[in-house]
């Protein structure tokens, strides 16, 4: 028996309880991490300055700046609560959260450091200063965009398939979002603007994967004789298992290369994608389809009861 033939014999739907338990544990760990974060840091996720506002200034100078002196310069300019760290040989990083360094003052601070430690090395100066109001606005708009695209995806699948199919796909997607958020909360990865992109990719991926499985169920329903829905759904997922694995594996390969070669500026982003791809593939087979089976069987039972 080849591997493909063996897959067709798998009873995926029959082990629904196993899959749900596994997912519940993973999501529960994430939720616990979020609760712990909320208690000890005041927010379930670690939002970066793109979302909460704040300032990061990096620069290298002719001579290595002293942290205490730089702290003095900052407080002389009215900013006393700033984290100052040496970065590299002659560089320094100044970071403050939620209370941004006014753009009108940032130039003066750098000039004050230049006066003591010599000119800024060409191309090393980086300033990110986001007003909290802008950060909150970005967070609000991004959440709105994500929420609306979920809603309309549900609408589209409802039109093309059935409401139950759409709901199962969306729930699978929600599963993926929680898994990813949980892991981000667990490792306290700071979330910045690029994460909106990573989340979009996860959602997209999850939907695309889900729709293909749903399509096979839809097709099988058309030629359905008397077979029970769980058997039909199991056949659909086992028949599409290899293709689900292959598409995920190719995407996984591509992102893995990005993870290894993209280096630190994109590492958090690519890690999120890797988690999303694995979770997205898993959820469309092991979460969305069993959910659909539960829903449909529940309805069929109710209908049978009414007849009797």
């Amino acid at each position: 028996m080849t591997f493909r033939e063996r897959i067709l014999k798998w009873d995926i739907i029959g082990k629904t309880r196993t899959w749900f338990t596994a997912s519940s544990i993973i999501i529960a760990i994430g939720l616990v991490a979020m609760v712990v974060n909320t208690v000890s840091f005041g927010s379930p996720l670690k939002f970066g300055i793109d979302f909460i506002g704040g300032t990061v200034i990096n620069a290298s100078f002719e001579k290595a700046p002293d942290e205490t002196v730089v702290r003095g310069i900052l407080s002389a300019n009215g900013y006393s609560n700033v984290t100052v760290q040496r970065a590299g040989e002659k560089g320094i990083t100044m970071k403050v959260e939620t209370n941004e360094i006014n753009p009108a003052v940032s130039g003066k601070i750098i000039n004050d450091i230049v006066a003591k430690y010599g000119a800024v090395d060409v191309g090393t100066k980086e300033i990110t200063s986001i007003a909290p109001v802008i950060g909150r606005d970005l967070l609000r708009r991004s959440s709105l965009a994500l929420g609306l695209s979920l809603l309309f995806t549900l609408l589209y699948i409802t039109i093309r398939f059935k409401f139950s199919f759409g709901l199962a796909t969306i729930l699978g997607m929600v599963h993926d979002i929680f898994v990813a958020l949980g892991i981000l909360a667990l490792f306290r990865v700071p979330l910045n603007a690029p994460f909106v992109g990573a989340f979009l990719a996860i959602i997209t991926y999850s939907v695309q994967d889900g729709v293909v499985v749903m399509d096979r169920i839809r097709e099988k329903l058309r030629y359905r004789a008397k077979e029970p829905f769980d058997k039909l759904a199991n056949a659909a997922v086992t028949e599409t298992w290899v293709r689900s694995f292959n598409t995920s594996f190719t995407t996984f390969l591509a992102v893995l290369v990005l993870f290894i070669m993209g280096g630190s500026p994109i590492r958090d982003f690519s890690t999120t994608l890797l988690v999303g791809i694995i979770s997205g593939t898993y959820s469309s087979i092991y979460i969305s389809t069993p959910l659909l089976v539960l829903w449909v069987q529940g309805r069929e039972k109710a209908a049978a009861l009414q007849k009797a």
Partner: protein
Amino acid sequence: MRSKVTASLILVIVVAIVAGVINYEGLIAKNTKLVPKLGLDLRGGVRIVLEAQDTESAKATSEAIDAAVGVIDKRVNALGVSEAVAVRQGVNSKRITVELPGWEDPERAKAIIGKTALLEFKTEDGKVVVNGSNLKNAQLVFSQAQDSLGEPQISFELDAAGTTAFAAATQANIGKKISIYLDSQLLMSPTVEVAITDGKGVISGGFTATEASNYALLLKSGSLPVKLVAISEEVVGPSLGSVFVHRSAWAALIAFLLVAIWMFIMYRYLGLVSGIALIVYADILMAAYLVLHATLSLPAIGGAILSIGMAVDANCIIFERIREELGMKKTVKSAIGAGFSRAFRAVFDSNLTVLVGTAFLFYFGTGTVRGFSVTLALGVLASMFTAVFASHTLVDLLLTPGIAKNSRKFLG
């Protein structure tokens, strides 16, 4: 049948060649209309967000903010930054985002962008006779006069209405003073000796050369009709950009090779077809980025590499389907036909779902989110063409009698 395959093949080849020419022009010949646009996070530069605030003299009305965007646009272009943009963050927003790609001097940018630059000529009784809106031209000059030789000054020229008003005012105020104010700060108050009828003059106010040149630029671009305050700034060094772009190009190539090898292992000759389709895909996608001037930012490039993996998605769906059809003891030809047509619905629905999602993201999103949704949507459209249409054509070509003897071998 055969002529249909030929026609499709010609279409695929023409599209690939057109895309190839665009890529050659943009990436190698560096045609200025097609050079790839890199986002601020990769290219380096300055981004400043300004917020309009109400003052006693000027309310931050919607019209005033729109007018301010126009003024800033003129100013940043006068600075000589290529591809500088000034946009309002939304129809009802009080914020304006200004991006200066490649610019490294945030202080000069802030000094120029946020200044009101309202020039006023006032008589002794405080009446404004001419203001900055009457200026036709302004530039930095160096004084030729004996007592102030070499001092930086701003020479100006008034438009027709300004010239008339200025002539009348100087005529009426001979022997009196006319004061020149910039942003309510007194620059000079010379005594009028004769009526000035040609609308030309020189302002000196103890400027340095840089100040005089900045002010001349500001005066020429017009004054801001509303008070603007910088609330956010981002200064990105250029170092990240070139290294990252270089590495992403390698990452994309390696990702492509790995995906192609995996597809060959799984689907043999069909896998080879998807490899060719993937090359055409990358070709079309890059050309689309160039033609549409899509901005390539860090997450957008990540998305593009991700899409290499996703582009073969449709191929996997179709090839698996062909295998299943073959399992039902169909001939190779009918299995391939059925595989493509049956799989099409799944491919169509999954891709269209993604397009619906991206449309909303684009509409409601900002900056990064928008860029990402554009690259994602382009990827989906391009992969529909290559993974479905181009692959089908190539598979049909392989089936054409005379090219392959044992067609069952294709399927590994």
